């Protein structure tokens, strides 16, 4: 069997050093702002990628969805760039922009011709430093309505969308930062006030809680000079207390059944695992690849090719900053009852936990995953976000090589063990049946840990 990419990634392979690298410099301004620069002179474009180290996990009780609502408010204008200057200036410069919120962080990015770099940094600086002077109730109300529309579109008017509301509180105990959905509840969105916005900004949107990656056809000196110019007068914020990592365990199978206006039943299993860069997250990534990464993966082959009982089956390992989980989602074909799928999935997991993957399966999975690393560094936008992600998770932006190396170090027995350790135990089960067909619902096992 062949390993392809180590030979291909060449570069500084000597002495066991990681071969894959996206070189980046790290500088810190006096106010605590981290600035990461990656020079890539292959195309006349630049990406600016800003991470604030706050997500829905830091929301107060009764204010779920607030971090994401706040993300929307960041586009509503700041003292020197009044609404709607942000989007209009960038479009006029030929640049695109967007933002996103997870449980652990909120990111903002711009991407466009190098001629727009200074405008991008000025706009980011103005909203980092001077958002509140022009913030008012009307802006909060406007974006509150839009976020509610987003919730309707992505959850309530979406087939199976309600699973996204059910799973977080099923997996995480009340009070855990991951025990509510990032989008939040309609009631909590309604409750958000201008005072909440001001408090949240003062607590979290400070230069010492942010990191900026600039990647593209730029030089470090040029970026540092611009960053000094635009960000240096933003005052450092208060010291921040981040939520502590906390990995819950589950004592027994927990089943939630619900009906939806759909024509096929859908099963979702979820297990507690480990947080990002925990001991087993790389092995769990490989396990997911071996379960559903390809047509001949265990669950895909069994359910889509042999039994032909599902529309799709997907394994999804999710390793976040505080905790991790692993889910398997399968949608039965019309009339297929979920216990049938459960029996097949359970059998395949038990077999993998007993025998482990074959050498051929490991080689295939590794080659495929190594290729994904390479594919992920093709765009400056993708590299910029990943540099920020690695920096947040490990303190080191260029952890590409380290991440690849630890993935490659996973053995067949590691995969066998993590399947046994994490995926045979108690799990959360969400069962969605078509309205009026409760006979298709999944069932819980009698399992004690």
């Amino acid at each position, binding site marked *: 069997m062949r390993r392809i990419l180590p030979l*291909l*990634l060449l570069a500084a392979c000597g002495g066991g050093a990681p071969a894959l690298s996206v070189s980046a410099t790290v500088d810190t301004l006096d106010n605590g702002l981290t600035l990461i620069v990656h020079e890539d002179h292959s195309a006349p474009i630049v990406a600016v990628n800003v991470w604030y180290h706050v997500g829905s996990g830091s929301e107060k009780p009764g204010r779920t969805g607030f971090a994401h609502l706040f993300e929307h408010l960041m586009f509503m204008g700041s003292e020197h760039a009044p609404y709607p200057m942000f989007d209009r200036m960038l479009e*006029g410069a030929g640049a695109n922009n967007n933002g996103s919120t997870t449980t652990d962080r909120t990111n903002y990015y711009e991407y466009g011709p190098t001629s727009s770099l200074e405008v991008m940094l*000025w706009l980011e600086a103005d909203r980092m430093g001077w958002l509140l002077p022009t913030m008012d109730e009307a802006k909060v109300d406007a974006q509150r309505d839009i976020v509610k529309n987003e919730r309707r579109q992505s959850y309530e008017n*979406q087939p199976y969308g309600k699973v996204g509301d059910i799973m977080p509180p099923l997996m995480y105990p009340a009070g855990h930062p991951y025990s509510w959905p990032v989008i939040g509840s309609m009631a909590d969105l309604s409750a958000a006030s201008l005072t909440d916005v001001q408090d949240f900004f003062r607590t979290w949107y400070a230069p010492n809680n942010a990191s900026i990656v600039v990647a593209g056809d730029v030089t470090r000196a040029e970026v540092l000079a611009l960053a000094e110019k635009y960000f240096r007068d933003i005052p450092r914020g208060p010291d921040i207390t981040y939520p502590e990592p906390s990995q819950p365990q589950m004592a027994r199978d927990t089943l939630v059944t619900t009906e939806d206006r759909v024509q096929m039943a859908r099963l979702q299993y979820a297990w507690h695992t480990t947080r990002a860069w925990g001991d087993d997250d790389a092995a769990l990534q490989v396990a997911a690849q071996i379960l559903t990464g390809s047509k001949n993966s265990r669950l895909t082959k069994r359910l889509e090719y042999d039994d*032909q009982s599902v529309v799709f089956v997907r394994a999804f390992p999710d390793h976040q900053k505080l905790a991790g989980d692993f889910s398997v989602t399968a*949608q039965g074909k019309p009339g297929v009852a979920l216990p049938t799928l459960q029996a097949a999935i359970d059998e395949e997991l038990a077999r993998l936990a007993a025998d482990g993957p074959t050498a051929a399966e490991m080689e295939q999975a590794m080659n495929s995953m190594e290729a994904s690393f390479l594919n992920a560094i093709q765009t400056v936008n993708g590299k910029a976000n990943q540099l920020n992600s690695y920096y947040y998770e490990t303190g080191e932006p260029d952890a590409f090589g380290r991440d690849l190396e630890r993935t490659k170090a996973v053995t067949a027995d590691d995969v066998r063990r993590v399947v046994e350790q994490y995926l045979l135990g108690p799990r959360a089960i969400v069962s969605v049946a078509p309205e009026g067909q409760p006979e298709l619902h999944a069932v819980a096992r009698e399992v004690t840990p």
Partner: protein
Amino acid sequence: MTRTQTSHAAVVALLAVAVPMSAQVTSPPPLGAAPALTLPAVDTARLDNGLTILVSRNAEVPLVSGRLIIDGGARTAGAAPGLATFTASMLDEGAGGKDALGLAEAVDFLGATLRTSASWEEFSLSVSGPKRTFGEALGLLADVALRPAFAEADIARERDARQAQLVAAKDSPGQVASRVFARNVFPAGHPMHENLSGDSATTAALTAESVRAFWASVADPAKAVLILTGDVTAAEARRWAAAHFGDWPAPETAATKPAASTVASPPRPQTRVILVDKPGAPQSVVFIGAPGVDRESPDYAAISVMNTILGGSFSSRLNDILREQRGYSYGASSSYQWSPVPGPFVAASQVRTNVTDSSLAVFFREFERIRTEPVPADELERARNYNVLGALGDYETAAQVNGAIASALQFGHPLSRTADELAAMGRVTAAEVQAAAQQYLDPTRLTVVVVGDIATIRRGIEGLRLGPIEVQEF
């Protein structure tokens, strides 16, 4: 404080040596000089069997993107609805002596990705992966194109899977709206009246025999173009192509595709409203549009800029009003779907159920406004730049370059023509935007599809008097 460009440059120079400065910068910096767009160069070669090879080299990342385009697709004469896309989906379910799972395993081993699809106009078989193994990966693509298995059991399995997907589509209000829109805008007999995936009856009729016969007639090297981009030289491309596709024979009986110009232009009836019921829906999915425009229209640049202003960017009028100003929606947009047989113009949004009528009124008022009022200079300049400068980011990866070459090829254009088109967009005037809207966007001849809770939304829509209202099932 306001800075001139001169003093600003001086400040940057000072900062480079870390001289302190004071206070925030209160006015926006000027844009730098825009970089020039350099389109990737494309080499052309041809094999004896007629296969054309297009190569564009960029060795920055050791990856190669390959795509075999075969003219034909769902518009191939005699192709039943859904046959072309089903055949394309069967190509990688076993080929070259490997079954579906064996083929997937071989592709993964090379660190490659292989995809097959069909559009109205063509088949697209793509493979991408590391340069080191790309010769072998291209061999797998040749297996898929030249030696597909089309085994009975695989056909039966994938036919069943497609039936389930067709059922699933009915659960998604967005997909329902899209399909009802297409079948109403394009009359029976027009290719786009049908769904690319067909329906449950056409799917049930698919057989291994029909798939084999169809592929045998369309897999024609004389109608095929192999596009290779990324870390590949023209010499390597020719060598690989000759090795893997050199013995590709012409079909015994070649299929034909009618010229796009022979497809009758769809009628443009008076504006009408079609409702599809989704009781209890919290939002209504709205599609509004009409048959689109020929890509060769002399007004292509003006139409593109006009659409950017109407609904083609975040700051566009439809998104600005429906989302930002009114809070009716999470987003609204419009687009022209350019293809040799013109696709539709469509403006779409998902809007809160209780403002469905008000949202429709906004759409129609904006259609009218862009026809009657000259676009302000700053809005026009922003839209032109968004298109022209935005194109600088379109050629970063091998896959993007490959896609751009394929996209131009669809219309018989070389990639180099893109530069002329962008230049033309940069020159579009306010009068041209208005003229394009007047000529191509007629609010009295539109099809409106709304998928939502009819009991709640119907009365308000009636009050708009847009045209006759009809309820359809899907």
